[in-house]
């Protein structure tokens, strides 16, 4: 039997507002533990929440970018549970009346697009950070827990997709596109390493062609797109194996650890919490006025998905996708406008530029265009060095462009002859059929010329001389 996976995602994005969701404490990463706290976020008796206007506005903006309906009346609920990172013993969240619902995000692909439904996007407060003190740093085997309340009460948007995803690759691409959307809207840094974007994955499988929804498992605490893809693939394979061996999949939450072969369960259905949701009586319903919604709509530019589709008309889909989800497409447009060849510019940006880790915002597109256009005429070493400095203030391509590549055969031939002579054994092997050694000779010549030789000419000449 062939199987189809059914995947839904729950994404949490930390908003980078000045202050926390329900108090005036600074909302910022870092800081001495428990230095950004007050009676409200520490849940002292009598403390009351006051909602952060900016956080509500930004959630509305994200909802619009995800094509959601914006609620005329949204309600905060209390989600009750005991945990050391949750000082009120309830989290203020949204339940059946979220700010945003029924949206969609179209993920462009080589053959059209895959539309993923957005079930809802709502606003809530983050929990404190539990620091589990143990040798491994993981929850398993921890011996003590310290709590840092700096993160407690910071605004968090939760985005829940419909179970419209059927493979790990689409899940990964959806997450990348969503991340880029959130970053461009200015809502969040959405940095996975810092936890400002986190996601949980729900996975189930069913016989191909069926529309049933079987028991799903939840993979929690993913902190990389590749881990998510890997975890999903592993979980799909596991569930198929379970069914094919005649077993049943249990509803459970799994802790994904990429260094382990399997994902150990965190908790099973029997321990599922009853959160006793009820409307938060300390807050009044949120009613975003129409002019606010219009203003937020006006702040949204051309979204990443649309730009991928537009740029894919000029470049390959792959290049368009890499440029946009890497936040490089605006620089690419500018470099092309300054005279660089589009494909060449895309190659440079998607490969060397990314590897050099330069902030695209700091780059002078005109200078970069000169460099890209001269790429074939200057030595590789000079090009690499120039690119590494492309983000420096006042960067000029001129000094690098003066270093010309050596393409003159009469200059290169003596060097090539010398290399063949001193590697006679390899030359013999090449002639008797070991063609792979061509690269060895080219490399030796490049080394001899200090990287200034034109590799294409060297290639041609070496082949001729050995042939």
């Amino acid at each position, binding site marked *: 039997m062939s199987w189809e996976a059914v995947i839904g995602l729950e994404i949490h994005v930390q908003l980078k507002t000045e202050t926390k969701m329900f108090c005036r404490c600074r909302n910022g990463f870092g800081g001495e533990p428990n230095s950004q706290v007050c009676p409200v976020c*520490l849940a002292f008796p*009598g403390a*009351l929440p*006051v909602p952060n206007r900016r956080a509500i506005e930004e959630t509305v903006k994200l909802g619009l970018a995800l094509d959601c309906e914006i609620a005329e009346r949204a309600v905060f609920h*209390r989600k009750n549970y005991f945990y050391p990172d949750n000082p009120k013993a309830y989290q203020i969240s949204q339940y059946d009346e979220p700010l945003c619902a029924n949206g969609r995000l179209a993920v462009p692909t080589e053959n059209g697009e895959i539309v993923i439904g957005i079930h809802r996007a709502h606003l809530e407060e983050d929990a404190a950070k539990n620091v589990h003190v143990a040798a491994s740093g993981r929850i398993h085997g921890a011996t003590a827990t310290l709590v840092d309340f700096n993160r407690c009460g910071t605004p968090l948007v939760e985005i829940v997709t419909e179970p419209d995803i059927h493979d790990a690759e689409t899940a990964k691409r959806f997450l990348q596109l969503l991340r880029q959307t959130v970053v461009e809207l200015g809502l969040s840094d959405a940095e996975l390493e810092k936890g400002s974007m986190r996601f949980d994955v729900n996975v189930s499988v069913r016989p191909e062609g069926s529309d049933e929804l079987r028991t799903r498992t939840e993979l929690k605490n993913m902190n990389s797109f590749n881990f998510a893809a890997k975890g999903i693939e592993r979980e799909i394979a596991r569930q198929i194996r379970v069914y094919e061996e005649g077993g049943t999949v249990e509803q459970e939450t799994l802790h994904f650890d990429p260094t382990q072969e399997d994902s150990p369960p965190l908790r099973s259905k029997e321990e599922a919490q009853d959160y*006793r949701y*009820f409307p938060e*009586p300390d807050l*009044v319903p949120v009613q975003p006025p129409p002019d606010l919604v219009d203003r937020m709509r006006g702040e949204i530019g051309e979204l990443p998905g649309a730009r991928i589709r537009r740029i894919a008309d000029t470049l390959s889909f792959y290049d368009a996708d890499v440029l946009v989800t890497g936040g490089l497409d605006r620089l690419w447009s500018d470099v092309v406008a300054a005279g660089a060849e589009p494909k060449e510019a895309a190659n440079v940006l998607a490969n060397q530029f990314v590897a050099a880790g330069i902030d695209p915002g700091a780059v002078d597109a005109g200078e970069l265009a000169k460099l890209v256009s001269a790429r074939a005429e200057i030595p590789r070493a000079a090009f690499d060095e120039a690119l590494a400095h492309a983000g420096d203030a006042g960067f000029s391509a001129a000094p690098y462009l003066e270093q010309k590549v050596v393409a003159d055969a009469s200059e290169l031939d003596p060097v090539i002859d010398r290399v063949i002579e001193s590697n006679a054994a390899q030359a013999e092997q090449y002639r008797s059929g070991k063609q792979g050694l061509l690269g060895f000779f080219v490399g030796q010549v490049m080394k001899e010329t200090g990287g200034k030789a034109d590799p294409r000419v060297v290639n041609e000449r070496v082949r001729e001389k050995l042939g």
Partner: protein
Amino acid sequence: MTIDTLRLTAEEAKNLLERKEISGSELFAAYAERDDDLNAYLHRCEDPGGDGIPLAVKDVIGTKGIPTTAGSKILENYVPVCDATVIANAKRHGLRTLGKTNTDEFAMGSSTENSAYGPSRNPWDPTRVPGGSGGGSAAAVSGGLAPWALGSDTGGSIKQPAALCGQVGLRPTYGTVSRFGVVAFASSLDQVGPVAKTVRDCAYLYSIISGRDENDSTTVDVPAVEIPAAEDLKGLRIGVPKEMNHVEGVEPGVTELVDKAIALAESLGAEVDECSLPLSVDYGMPCYYLVAPAEASSNLARYDGVRYGLRVDGDDFREMVMRTRDAGFGDEPKRRIMIGTYALSSGYYDAYYATAQKVRTVIKREHDAVFEKFDVIVSPTSPSVAFPFGAKAADPLAMYLCDVFTIPSCLAGLPGLNIPVGLSEGLPVGLQLIGPQFAENTLFRMGYALERAIGFDFVPERLR
């Protein structure tokens, strides 16, 4: 001059201070030096200086640097780092905190017998309860230990003790007084309000503490408070709900005095007619005992021994929390936490909490309809006068019924004023005046005119 703290009103004290006939420290000392044989205070304060009027504060209201226990062991050592907004407002008017008054634990009760620190005594008869939960505030004002006080009211905790101690007490319209810094019992019902010897004092204190607060999103702008002066009730339409007057369970002495007060109002020019709140009275009590415990179960979950208050150590986090809560909470909070947790649980939510919220909407609408025809509705505040200690303590349901008349308007978010209307067998009887939202000025007007006409002596007979 000697200061008769039993008789001196806040208004008179203010005048004496302004005319410099007494100093601020003399006035404060007059209350502070009086022996608290009523157990009205859980904590008494030093004079912070200044020449403002002294004020007693119910111990659920957070006071910076002054212990705030909410009558519970679990907060025995808790000292707030900031003032509640009502205290900040009071301080802006120069008011000085005399002390923190006794309360049923987390304001859950009608007699102060649920206080972890022992009950307060009724100044009219020390063998009887002062009412609750704000029995400490009412006893302090009645017993000459404070010129006036702040209380808090969830289902009757200002009005009922004021009635049992012969004082004036206002539960304000929900949203007119900030709850910031007030230890929460049931957030959608809790309101802070004044307890005073006179209606004018009550109105003045309300004007000081009320108003929109940026720290409490449920507060609103409040109409200007008018200190009442008129002695007639011309044009005032008074409704007498038949389900709350002349009904079974009300002591005859209470009914008699309430009837006399209503007749007096009519003689002052008011139009009096019967009205009906059939669902509010029948369903108010069950509705309240689902909504309030549900919210309480969530509000009280923060007392875990981690950040403040009592901590009883255990082998791990769970055990520490369980031991702390077991030792720190008394029977009544435990009972309500359990009821509330149950009412909110998956599978029961729709039957209990969601239904109670629907009933609450019905109660609001029923009151709205009555207030289309009437300006004020009246009833006894309490079905009985002050009862002896232990009379109801063993029977939670009997205790809950003390609030049968005060609860419906609390659920509807409406203001209610208690004024004393006489003595039945030597104990005060209170009349409850209920108005539509933001009708405090109307209640003050009616309360003041009746107060003048009745001429009730608020000083307990045995202390005169």
